[in-house]
């Protein structure tokens, strides 16, 4: 699906004292199968933007087009397109209302008109994707779960839709480190296999770095950067200007560079950060050793 955001403005509670401009004329295009990260400080408009892409909000001005059709329109074409967009909300607790985990996860697929076997298959698949053993969790009550378990259920509910456009708003908040890594790896594999569009909203820039090819930065309701992952997330200066802290690897390399090590700083993967430091460290040590040897002759 082709997503086009055109001069989109959103004002909450317009005309009241609590009026709040959340988006200020955003224009953005996301092609089919793209993997895009959206970041920005709290309140910059990320959740508002993705809710527009899912057709859940009505623009104050401007529009979002899904394959050329306004996302929020009340037409069958628009509804059909919205059905292909799955948005996992930032606060999933607010969304859950079924009495068992399996019913909660089955809720979406049931509304897609699938038969019982297909639904059961989807539920099992989705629970496995999020690392919940169907045997022990299917019949549990969604509200009576730990925080991380609840978030996994909410994610499973969206995955079970197998959407063409998958939007995840802070999907890993509350997940333990292994769960986070495993779920993201499975999502990556699923995305590669299906060619779905992936839109990932996150404050965790290092986590985002391994998942997307392109990053959009929002600040104060506007797009302040939009480009390849490495050029956006590897640029500590620009991130700070947008009110964000750079990923830890970038911060580490910047500190070394400030101390005179001529390392590159736009390095995101931890393995590459290690190589960059090791490479320079051993070169440097060689010159040190050499100068000691030279002196001793």
């Amino acid at each position, binding site marked *: 699906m082709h997503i086009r955001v055109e001069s989109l403005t959103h004002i909450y509670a317009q005309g009241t004292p609590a009026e709040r401009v959340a988006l200020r004329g955003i224009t953005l295009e996301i092609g089919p199968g793209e993997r895009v990260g959206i970041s*920005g400080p709290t309140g910059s408009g990320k959740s508002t933007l993705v809710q527009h892409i899912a057709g859940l909000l009505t623009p104050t001005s401007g529009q979002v087009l899904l394959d050329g059709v306004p996302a929020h329109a009340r037409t069958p074409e628009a509804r059909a397109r919205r059905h292909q967009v799955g948005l996992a909300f930032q*606060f999933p607790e607010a969304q859950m209302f079924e009495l068992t985990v399996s019913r909660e996860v089955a809720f979406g697929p049931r509304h897609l008109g699938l038969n019982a076997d297909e639904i059961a298959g989807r539920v099992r698949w989705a629970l496995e994707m999020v690392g919940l053993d169907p045997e022990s969790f299917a019949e549990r009550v969604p509200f*009576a779960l730990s*925080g991380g378990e609840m978030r996994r259920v909410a994610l499973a509910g969206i995955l079970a839709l197998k959407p063409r456009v998958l939007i995840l708003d802070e999907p890993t908040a509350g997940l333990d480190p292994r769960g986070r890594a495993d779920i993201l790896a499975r999502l990556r594999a699923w995305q590669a296999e299906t060619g779905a569009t992936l839109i990932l909203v996150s404050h965790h820039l290092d986590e985002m770095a391994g998942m997307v090819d392109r990053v959009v930065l929002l600040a104060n309701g506007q797009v302040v950067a939009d480009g390849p992952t490495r050029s956006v997330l590897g640029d500590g200066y620009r991130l700070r200007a947008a009110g964000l802290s750079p990923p830890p690897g970038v911060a580490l390399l910047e500190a070394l560079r400030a101390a005179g090590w001529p390392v590159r700083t736009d390095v995101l993967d931890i393995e590459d950060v290690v190589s960059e430091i090791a490479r320079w460290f*051993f070169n440097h040590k060689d010159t040190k050793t050499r100068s000691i040897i030279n002196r001793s002759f």
Partner: protein
Amino acid sequence: MSIPFIQTRALEHVYTAEDGRSIPALRGIDLTVHRGEFVALIGPNGSGKSTLARHFNALLLPTAGEVWVDGMLTSDPRHVQAVRQRVGMVFQNPDNQLVAGTVEEDVAFGPENLGIPPTEIRRRVDEALEVVGMTDYRRHPPHMLSGGQKQRVVIAGALATRPDCIVFDEPTSMLDAEGRRQVLQTVRRLNAELGLTVILITQSMDEAALAQRVLVMDGGRVVLDGPPEAVLEAEELDGLGLGRPYAAEVARRLRAQGVPLPRGLLTVEALAAALQNI
């Protein structure tokens, strides 16, 4: 000198699910938290962290064993009010915890519920807002604040009831890096300057590294307990899938390549400094 503040003895908690199945969440916990300690509580999802924390202020009562808070047994109904006053809670999502129309009304909410006289409430609200650095925002509607600011208001609300201890259950997981920094700095300051006992539940090993002591839970038990330098680089953490602080992981990989770095480098600053000094 260390004075025990929270003690659990053979604490067990078993939830009963809708279908009657038992879900053992705590399986025999013997633990002492001392007055003024800053303890991080980490562990996989479902390992029992939030359940344990809820026992510290009598939101839950043991299904077996005992919990003592400041010398009071939490399962004694006469003590519930006093226990809740001693131990405050701050949860992950500030939006669910902010109830009033202005910041100061919100902070006053807790003490009002305790039936404290208005002049005293006034003083406590002023003080609590001062401590978290939100005095200038006292008449703001809470929903207009940033996530980090909202969370600081929630902390002020917890402080206004004058607890000896605050349990923070993943207070930063919805915040951006700047919001996280603000909240953690506030937490550290409350501990260092006011001697507040702090229990911080987190999934971030980088945050756990800021504590004086780290407790690791798995399957309803405490499986590791010690200073961050010892616990956060323990081999056992790999088995639990908890990983290491970012800097410790980079240092470990550099050591494997022959860079002579010591263990115990838990922050990016410490690692950068160590690299420069080799």
